[in-house]
């Protein structure tokens, strides 16, 4: 046991969020060398494979079921498809356009809800983050800490009064309530994230522009915005996934009315009332998932960056 190295203090202090700054010499080669000793144990490989299978099979089951004829779905498990392949698009046709489910309508609602609910909070919080980062004003630190602290307030605590306020204004069960609510709930995290990214920009850049006589608006648009595009993208994906997948806010604010409710609300409803009709339910669930999954697969890099900045740097 005497050889057991205690973790040197330097490691414990290693900033976890900052991924590998460029190592002094050919990091790729060094990694490759270290990799040869990693995963040498077959147990490690087995663990990885078992976990990967556990994490993917359930989704595969849903996907396969949604393409099977309804008779097959109710008679046999989805794995029978490999022995006896018969696939159909009938379930999707019925889920999207069938009179009783009509998911295409909810798909439009999801889209109409999501775009403004992503764009509006991003713009408001970009401005606020700029204000907090680069404009000196009285009470700035206090206000920023207050906004930061609001991140932990569960949104449930605002829902009841917010809804009665909307009813008072006569705008309940319109898209405006959903847009407004999502905007408000997104602000604390968005401001915090974007502020972090803005603070990473070297002050000399901003100072130089100021010396050249640029006002705040010019600095904001010409100096900061181009550098911040990746950061904005990561928050945009975050917010997109959150809004598209949200159930609580939209359920409360739309009252599950077909004219405004998004996919999640309708699919959750179907899970309650059509629990046995797996062919429709799986197709419906997949319709509600396909957009976020595609967005996620293509923009994964930005998403991970946002995740790390939001959870670890703080």
């Amino acid at each position, binding site marked *: 046991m005497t050889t057991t190295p205690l973790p040197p203090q330097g490691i414990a202090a290693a900033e976890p969020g900052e991924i590998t700054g460029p190592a002094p010499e050919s990091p790729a080669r060094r990694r490759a060398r270290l990799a040869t*000793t990693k995963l040498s144990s077959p147990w490690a490989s087995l663990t990885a494979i078992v976990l*990967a299978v556990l994490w993917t099979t359930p989704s595969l089951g849903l996907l396969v079921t949604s393409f099977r004829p309804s008779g097959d779905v109710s008679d046999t498990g989805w794995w029978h498809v490999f022995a006896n392949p018969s696939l159909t698009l009938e379930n999707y046709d019925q889920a999207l356009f069938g009179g009783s489910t009509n998911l295409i309508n909810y798909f439009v609602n999801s889209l109409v809800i999501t775009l403004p609910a992503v764009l509006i909070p991003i713009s408001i919080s970009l401005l606020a983050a700029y204000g907090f980062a680069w404009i000196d004003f009285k009470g700035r630190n206090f206000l920023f800490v207050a906004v930061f602290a609001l991140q932990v307030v569960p949104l449930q605590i605002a829902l009841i009064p*917010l809804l009665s306020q909307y009813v008072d204004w006569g705008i309940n069960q319109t898209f405006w309530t959903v847009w407004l609510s999502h905007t408000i709930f997104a602000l604390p995290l968005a401001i915090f994230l974007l502020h972090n990214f803005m603070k990473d920009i070297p002050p000399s850049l901003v100072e130089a522009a100021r010396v050249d006589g640029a006002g705040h608006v010019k600095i904001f648009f010409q100096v900061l915005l181009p550098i911040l595009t990746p950061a904005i993208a990561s928050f945009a994906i975050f917010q997109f996934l959150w809004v598209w997948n949200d159930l609580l806010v939209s359920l409360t604010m739309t009252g599950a009315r077909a004219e405004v409710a998004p996919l999640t609300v309708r699919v*959750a409803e179907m899970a309650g009332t059509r629990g046995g009709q797996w062919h429709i339910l799986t197709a419906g669930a997949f319709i509600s998932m396909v957009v976020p999954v595609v967005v996620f697969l293509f923009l994964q890099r930005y998403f991970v960056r946002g995740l*790390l900045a939001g959870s670890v740097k703080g």
Partner: protein
Amino acid sequence: MGEYFEWLFGAIRDYVFYRGDDAGHKLILMLIAIALFVVVMGAILWLVDKPKRIPGWVVAAGFVGPALLALAFGLVYPALLTINGSFKNGNGSEYIGLENYELAFTNPAFQAVLRNTALWVLLVPLLSTFIGLVYAVVVDRTRFERFAKTLMFMPMAISMVGASIIWRLVYDARQSGDDQTGLMNQLLVLVGIEPFDPRLETPPINTLYLIVVMIWIQTGFAMTVLSAAIKAIPDDIIEAAKLDGLSGLGMFRYITVPSIRPALVVVLTTIAMGTLKVFDIVRTMTGGQFETSVVANEFYVQAFRQNNQGLGAALAVLLFVIVIPIIIYNVRQMRLSEAIR
């Protein structure tokens, strides 16, 4: 003239606060909302961009003001109203002191809700973090790392409603003797165990099966953050440890885990806070039946289904109160790791 304006105003109002079913109208409305917003923001920026004539605080207010107003109106003020409402009766007509809270803690049905919530908040962070860490370590620096991580990360992109349906399909149970359609019961039948519906198990066992869904979603998050932390461990330290004869589990125990401690704390607390607020899973899996409800679900039911706003408000406040110790733990640990630095 006045009539005309009245008519115009009404027409605009009907158009903007549309409640109808026409897809084209909805899409145009969406564009209007975005355009309106761009115009308002542009106007604010244009107003504050006259550096000489405008005092500094107006500029600051132009940038920070919209966000602060929105937060004050939509989060802070409603939160205060909710706290106030939690001391009132069901329709908010009179104060009843702490009765709502008393009910939440003494009524047996609500005690089950609290017990379930405790199970969720303890088990989900611990298991997700543990599995995520193991996975991050075993796939680290392998050829398939990217692909393997995407597989586990994917559930993060799926809504909790979708994830619940995925798992209901896994749990689906038919009478024994019939062909099973749920994967879990099919496997059980293969090894000679009677099929069963996990949602109908004795509480709180059935809650454990619901918790699986959340673990399935959150593990990808834990894995991603921890993997980044692992990669941030300087190679020198790993090599030095190797020279000292450490490998495999020893490396994991004495180098990896202590090095990423701060990240572990953040992951645990973040997942705990997220789990506390989950209601989608419970609602989609069981609707809160069979004693599986949690505080967040009960909040929705009481506030918007039973129309017992006082009790709903009390439950919302309770959610907030439970978050506080988690945050204190988080801040303390961060201070600790900063002190070491």
